[in-house]
Every structure is written in C-alpha cells, then in structure tokens.
C-alpha cells in the first residue's frame, strides 16, 4: 500500500471517567488547521465503555467524523486494550496523521501504538504544520510535499527540533497540553459516528487494576488559570505559601509551584509547573522565590507577563521575566497583597 493511500487527520479523543479531556479539544482545533491544508477531514477516535454519547461534544469542537470503540475492557485506561483498539483503528482506516495528547495516558499509549504499527512518533510537540521535507530541496534527493512537520523542545527546552516522518504512515505525534488552541464550540454540530470493535481477548498483557486512588484537590487546574502565583523553594516552608495564597486570592488567581516544592513535599504534583509538570500560559505569572531552572522556564515562558521576585540578583528567572524585582519576598509579597486589595477596592 502506498503512502498516498493514507488519508485524514485523526485525533485520539482522550476521556477519563467518561469525561472528555481538554487536550482532545485542543488537538481537534489543531487537526482542523492541518486538515484544511491537506484538503481532508478530521476524525476523532473515542475509546471507552458507554462513551457514545460523547461524540456530539467532539463534533462541536471540530470533528467531522467520530470512530467509537465501545467495550467494557476500555472502561478504565490500561495500556494493552487501548493500544489494541487504537492500533486496530489505524490498521483499518489508514489515517495520514494521528495526534495524541502528551498526557500520562498519551505518553504511554502513543509509543506502544507507534511500535505496533511500525511508524515514527514525535514526542511532546508544541508546533505542528504542513510543509516540505527536506525543508529546502536538496539536489539528488526527493523533496516530499504535504508532510507533517513536528516541532518540539528538547534538552529541557534549550533546543528545538523540527521532525518529519517522510517514509512511514501514519505520521504520529504526541502534543503537549495547553499549547494548541480549541475552536469556539459550534453548538448543535453533528459528526458522522461510526462504531468499530476489533474484539478484545484478554492475554498476558492485560494488567489488573486493583485500585484507583484520586488525589483530593479543591483547586482549579493551573493550566486553566489566568493568573498564577507560583512559589519555589525560596518561599521557605509550606506554611509560608499562605502569603502567596493571599496574593492569588486578591487577584482571583491560583497558586502553583516549582518542582523543588513538590520534591520537598510542600505541594502536590498537580500544581507543578515545568518540564516534568504542566505547561502554563496565564496572562500573568508571578515567580516568587523561584530560581528559574531551565526545566521550570520551559513550562511557563509563554506566559503573557512574567513578574519575578527573588533575592538573588543573578537568578536565571530574571532572564525571562518582564518585570524582575530583586528583594525579599517575605517583605514584598504581603505588602503587595495589601496594596492590590486597596487598588481593587477603590475601583
């Protein structure tokens, strides 16, 4: 089968507890752009148990077609049945492009599926576009058009590479959450829904889930926050995060943190910004007592406005901050909170 016979842009529509994850909508937004350039359509692949009702929601966010694999084996995410389902969809429908979220599920499912269907997979992409490979024509080498060019950071965000998968199909990428833009949902949009079941025969690769333990958290997802007040080890103690929480409250923001804070056990992992945490792009990011290791910066440098407070004038966070204040956070932050409270009350 020739590469040209692979058609369409496919998105793995991740759901957890029968609720579609935000990343699925982000991928559909990007898939729509890519499909337009390729003059093809967008298909969402929805895997789960009793998930068919979710198809309309995917249509509202840009899916032209939804392939549903509905089976009790897919109720809770496990690598093998999910990999079997997605690989079977790929083998049956032969998509040109498959996008998967770079989530804790997608970063497990993606590599397993790509190995099964014997194609390349580019991890944690932040830019996807259609173009030529090689980028410039090289004499004696065929230049292929309409290739998926996948750009990703490497080395803790210090280098970026653009990668193509010219000789294998599908072209697969995992895409970092919080980077691609969702479309405004089109109310009442309908997609063509097709059910497909490859059959599931549990074997040695089917693991058993003994328990599901959910983290108890009453905070909003830091990836959705417009204002983040982020603390690092410089905050000094878990108790001292109170001054950050007060600042966040005045501004209607949310507290997040650096990896050092999570490693010290001061804050839960889901508040961690950075390479091994979450990528955020709020309107305002306060980096308080954060030195700014490259792994941290990789997760927050796209913020619109970065305000850094650190007593070390040489801290690398000042290299990315729009407004850097060299000083004692314990003296500045409480006063800042009071001052902002007064400003807002006066309005």
């Amino acid at each position: 089968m020739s590469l040209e016979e692979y058609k369409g842009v496919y998105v793995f529509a991740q759901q957890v507890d029968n609720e579609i994850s935000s990343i699925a909508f982000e991928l559909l937004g990007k898939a729509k752009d890519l499909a337009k350039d390729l003059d093809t359509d967008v298909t969402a692949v929805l895997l789960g148990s009793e998930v068919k009702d979710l198809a309309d929601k995917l249509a509202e966010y840009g899916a032209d077609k939804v392939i549903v694999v509905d089976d009790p084996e897919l109720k809770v995410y496990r690598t093998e049945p999910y990999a079997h389902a997605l690989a079977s969809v790929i083998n049956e429908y032969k998509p040109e492009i498959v996008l998967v979220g770079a989530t804790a599920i997608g970063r497990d499912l993606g590599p397993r599926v790509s190995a099964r269907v014997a194609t390349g997979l580019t991890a944690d992409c932040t830019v996807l576009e259609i173009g030529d490979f090689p980028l410039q024509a090289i004499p004696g080498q065929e230049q292929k058009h309409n290739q998926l060019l996948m750009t990703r950071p490497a080395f803790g965000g210090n280098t970026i590479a653009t990668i193509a998968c010219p000789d294998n199909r599908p072209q697969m990428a995992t895409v970092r959450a919080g980077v691609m833009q969702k479309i405004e949902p089109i109310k009442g949009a309908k997609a063509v829904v097709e059910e497909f079941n490859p059959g599931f025969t549990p074997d040695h690769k089917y693991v058993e889930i003994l328990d599901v333990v959910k983290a108890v958290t009453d905070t909003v997802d830091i990836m959705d926050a417009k204002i983040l007040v982020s603390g690092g080890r410089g905050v000094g103690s878990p108790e001292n995060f109170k001054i950050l929480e007060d600042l966040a409250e005045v501004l209607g923001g949310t507290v997040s943190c650096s990896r050092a804070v999570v490693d010290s056990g001061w804050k839960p992992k889901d508040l961690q910004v950075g390479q091994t945490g979450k990528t955020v792009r709020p309107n305002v990011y306060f980096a308080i007592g954060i030195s700014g290791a490259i792994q941290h910066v990789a997760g927050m440098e796209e913020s619109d406005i970065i305000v850094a407070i650190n007593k070390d004038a040489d801290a690398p966070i000042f290299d990315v901050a729009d407004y850097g204040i060299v000083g004692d956070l314990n003296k500045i932050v409480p006063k800042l909170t009071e001052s902002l409270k007064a400003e807002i009350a006066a309005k």
Partner: protein
Amino acid sequence: MKIVVCIKQVPDTKGGVKFNPDGTLDRGAMLAIMNPDDKAGLEAALRLKDECGAEVTVVTMGLPKAEEVLREAMAMGADKGILVTDRVLGGADTWATSTTVAGAIRNLEYDLIITGRQAIDGDTAQVGPQISEHLDIPVISYAQNIKVEGDSVIVERQYEDRYHVVKAKMPCLITALSELNEPRYMTPGGIFDAYQKEITVWGRADLKDVDDSNIGLKGSPTKIAKASDKVRKGAGEKVTLDPDESVSYIVDKLKEKHVI
C-alpha cells in the same frame, strides 16, 4: 529473580547549560551523568534485590564512553553490565533505539525490566513502552511504587490527578519516575568491585532478531528537518528597590498592562 535495568548516559543540565560561542549546546563542557529517572529505576531494582534477592543486569546503548554509567551502576550494586555500542547503531530515534535495546535484551533471561520514564536530553518517554511492545510483554509506565508478590508485580502507576494500583504478571516492563526513591551512593568497596568486574560489550552482530532496516539513523522513521537553539524572549526590566517601592513598581506595571 532476574531484573534488567536500562540506563542512559546523558549530559547534566543541573549545573546549568553551557553554550558554545556560536550559541549551540556545548555538550563537551557538561558533565555526563546517569539519567535521573534511570537511576531511580536502578535503585528500585537494587531494593528488590535487597528484599527478596535478585540478579540485576544493567544495559546501556551509547558510545564506548557510556561504560562509565555501567561502572557507576555496578558500584551501586548491580551485578552485570552490558554495553551495546556500534557505529551502525548511531543516530537512532526512539523506534530504532527500542528495537536495538530489545534485540540485546532477547539474549538475556528476565522477570522484570525497569527503565527510567524519560531521559533529560530527549524527554520523550517512548523507549520503555516501545521496548515492551517489541518484547510482547506488559508495560506499566510512570511507576511511583513497586512491589513484588509471587509471580506478579504490584505497581502504583501515576496519572495527573490520581494513581492506579496495577497488578501485572511477570515478565513485564516498568518505567520509573525519579520521585520513586532516593538512589543510594556508590560505596568505596562497590567502586573497587565494579572495576574488577568485566563489562560485556555487544555490537550489531550480537542483537537477536533485529532487522538492519530497523537500526541506526537509516532505520529511524523520524528524521530531523531542522534543529536550533531556542530563541528566548529575553530579559525585561530588573530593579532593586526597597519593599514599598517594589510594591508600587509592580502595582504600576499591572495597571499599565490592565491586569487590575
């Protein structure tokens, strides 16, 4: 029990990243270390060895210099070290790397394979799950706790907002998070022993059931179109003021930008 741990030698980014005058990464000026997630995987294997007895074999693929991380692993307590190195294996993407490592592991007996979740240079987290696929065994990624019970492993598998307690029959592959544990230090006796032990070196010919079309740069489905150092947006203003002035400064800037 036999445990295989896959490790990678990576440039250290912790002490800061060094650049050449032309702005490219100066890998030579940076220390080469054992990848942190891999070290946690090794520590997990050594703890299983302490608890229930196990033979721990470390495998690395890389340049001849990567022998250093095998020595380190053996000084920490690993029993055997295998270096997979060959010019034809160079330039491999995650697919070609995983077919190569799987080809090496096919020569070994194992109940458990442990890899790090991801390496700090590539950050892909792909090679572990891909090895498991080539070997047709279950994978449990993102392990934050590992226990052995009879012929099975029970693992806490981390997700963004929860963890699953997962039971898998061995043989299986686990990818370890660096949060999993605090790796032990090498001991002087261990270092001495490590240099007495032989390291096995394998090349292309030693890989089992691996096709030439699946190794090295040529066997890599993904190709680099362009690589560059990231252009950062650059520093803005930096001020050193007393606390009251600092507060006025921030408030003024937030007003200017219509945040408040």
